[in-house]
């Protein structure tokens, strides 16, 4: 007796196939998102602190600019008046000599008195001027000019230092702010992975489910790549 040929039996499709994998991937994505959020928070904090430092230095620089302006204005006014008085004294002395030569002794005496007044003003001005009292700037020899260039360099030294610190803080801010932005990009990409895993859960066809799961995994890997590049950059 011949047995009837066995017809191939089609196995019913497992409707829950890959669902466990999708759940694991979804929860893994959640953990990744939490770690990324932590990295993003840290980068943001560093950027905030650097931004604050940068602004604080900028405020100090503005104050220093104000101070430097006032001080140079005062010092150069005093020095300018000193020079004027000194020249006035010399000219009045010369005038007195000319008047004496012309026989006008009374006028010569008046000119001498005025010269003495100008000289007294100049002598006092010399004591007030940093260009004569500070050995760093005072003329080294008779007839030399004070070292005004060195004075301006020294005066602006603090401001230059503050500016360097401000620039450094601004650079640090740029760096960490850029990193924080990149982490946000990675988080946004992870959101796409969440969406794909959600779709994978919803579809009934196991092969399509697997396809969505695969796409989601690729997206996770891409997000991880962005994260590592940012972390090491």
């Amino acid at each position, binding site marked *: 007796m011949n047995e009837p040929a066995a017809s191939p039996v089609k196995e019913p499709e497992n409707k829950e196939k890959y669902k*466990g994998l999708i*759940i*694991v991937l979804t*929860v*893994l994505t*959640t*953990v990744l*998102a*939490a*770690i990324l*959020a*932590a990295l993003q*928070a*840290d980068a943001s*904090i560093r950027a*905030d*602190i650097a931004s*604050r430092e940068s*602004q*604080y230095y900028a*405020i*100090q620089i*503005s*104050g220093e600019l*104000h*101070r430097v302006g*006032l*001080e140079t*204005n*005062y010092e150069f*006014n*005093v020095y300018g*008046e000193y020079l004027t008085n000194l020249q006035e004294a010399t000219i009045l002395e010369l005038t007195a000599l000319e008047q004496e030569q012309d026989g006008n002794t009374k006028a010569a*005496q*008046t000119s001498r*008195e005025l010269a*003495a*007044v100008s*000289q*007294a*003003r100049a*002598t*006092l*001005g010399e*004591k*007030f001027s940093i260009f004569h*009292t500070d050995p760093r700037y005072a003329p080294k020899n008779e007839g030399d000019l004070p070292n005004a260039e060195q004075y301006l360099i020294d005066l602006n030294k603090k401001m230059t230092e503050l500016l360097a610190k401000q620039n450094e803080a601004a650079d640090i801010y740029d760096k960490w702010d850029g990193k924080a932005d990149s982490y946000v990009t990675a988080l946004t990409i992870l959101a796409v992975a969440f969406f794909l895993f959600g779709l994978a859960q919803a579809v009934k066809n196991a092969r399509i489910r697997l396809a969505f799961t695969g796409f989601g995994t690729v997206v996770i890997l891409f997000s991880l790549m962005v994260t590592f590049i940012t972390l090491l950059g």
Partner: protein
Amino acid sequence: MKKPNWFTSRFEVINAILIALVSLTTAFSVWRTNMVGSLAADENRAGLIDAVKSQSYDNENYRKLYQEAGFSYQFAVKEAEVQALEAGDSLEARDRAANMRQYLLPNMQLLAQPLATDEKYRKADGTFDLQKRFADMQNEVQDDPDPTLAFARADSYFSEQRWLVVGSVLLAISLFWLTLAEIGNERLRMLEFAIGLGVYLFGVAWFLGVEIVFLFLR
């Protein structure tokens, strides 16, 4: 036949309740972390406002200092001029000097006060001690705010925020293990549940510890 005990028979329900609890704790932890971050930002902003205020006090003091310095210099120069006139031989010049000393110099001295009136600012060579005057001006400012205090508080909040974020990550990790326990096979689920619960308890302890430490630090 071995009867399942009370815990294993209700495992899935207990685990589901725990997952809900972990989710709520995570949400609370994230909320608290953001609140602390917001407080840090507030302190940063307050510090910058204090820095602007403090700098404006300094600016005004410098302006006043050099205004006084200018008047004092003019007074000193005029005084030297009067002395030169007084020392001269001419009677007219001495008359001019007498009038200037009587009427002009006192008014100029008033303009130049306190540098020209308070002896503590006079140096031996007849010039004025501007640094001492500036130090006195700074001491006279009643409510000069110190921005570094607010910045230090901001740094403390930022630091707390960092540690709280670590706590949130721990809670997310515990969620991962508890979910594995929910869907996993019978053999491993108890181990996964134990890891999830352990990490959760550690995360909660971490969160509370961070809060308590920073409460005492501030």
